[in-house]
């Protein structure tokens, strides 16, 4: 598998570390207990398109949001986490 780092371009899997589901959002500090349990433990785990976080630790140290198909392993898009998140914030 190769992942296109928005900064560095196409790189091999070995340069990256996986974190998982990029759609979960850290609850507010005073959020109810269940919201925290959901955030830390529950996952959609879809078969198909999956937004996920990767860390380009052996490269530019960016956190990246990749949209990848978990059945075909095809990567549809990659974005910097900072950009994807700031867009989400300004969009909401």
């Amino acid at each position, binding site marked *: 598998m190769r992942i296109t780092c928005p*900064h*560095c371009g196409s*790189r*091999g899997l*070995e340069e990256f570390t996986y974190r998982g589901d990029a759609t979960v959002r850290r609850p507010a500090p005073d959020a109810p207990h269940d919201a925290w349990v959901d955030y830390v433990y529950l996952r959609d785990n879809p078969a198909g398109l999956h937004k996920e976080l990767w860390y380009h630790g*052996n*490269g*530019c*140290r960016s956190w990246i949001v990749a949209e990848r198909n978990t059945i075909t392993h095809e990567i549809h898009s990659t974005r*910097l986490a900072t950009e994807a998140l700031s867009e989400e914030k300004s969009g909401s």
Partner: protein
Amino acid sequence: MPDRLLATSALPQEAYRVNGMMLSLAPQRVTVSIGPFAGRLGELNAALKKAFKVTLPEDFITVAGPDGLLFTRAAHNQWLCSAPEGTDLLATLSTACQSLAALTNQSDSRVTLTLSGKGAESIVAKLVALDLHPSVFVPGQTALTLAGHVPVILTRHTDATAYDFTVFRSLAQSLHHDIFAAMNGGIPTSERVCP
């Protein structure tokens, strides 16, 4: 007053030659990392432009300033600035970019190994999973990547046949071994070695 401490090199100074290629330790330079604070990149570039007539490169390349200064992009939001040994780089940069960026001395963090000679590209290709074709990894370009298991900053010299591997000091001996082993293994027969 006690004697000054003497510096020790992470690797022996002598160059290794095999199969027409050479692996050597690049001259030590002074290096400072520049990490622009939030939203200050524009001001920082303006300040650098004023002081050194350069701005931080957006691409992963190295640009040259006056007095042997080099600026290399080295992380998502970090650049390495280096200068010849003896420069008080931290002070120079502090003056220029006060409060616009985090400045951290990195002079001792890394050492640079230079691999040069005909066929060097095929040796680099044994260690680095990057497309090294000169149209893709162009002379002067830099990449943050892995050489085998070792993280490096790889730079292709502008004369195209030499490469710099900039590596964390503690890993320098390991990387040196790996490059030397790759050199000894020879140039694959399918490799086109440009004259």
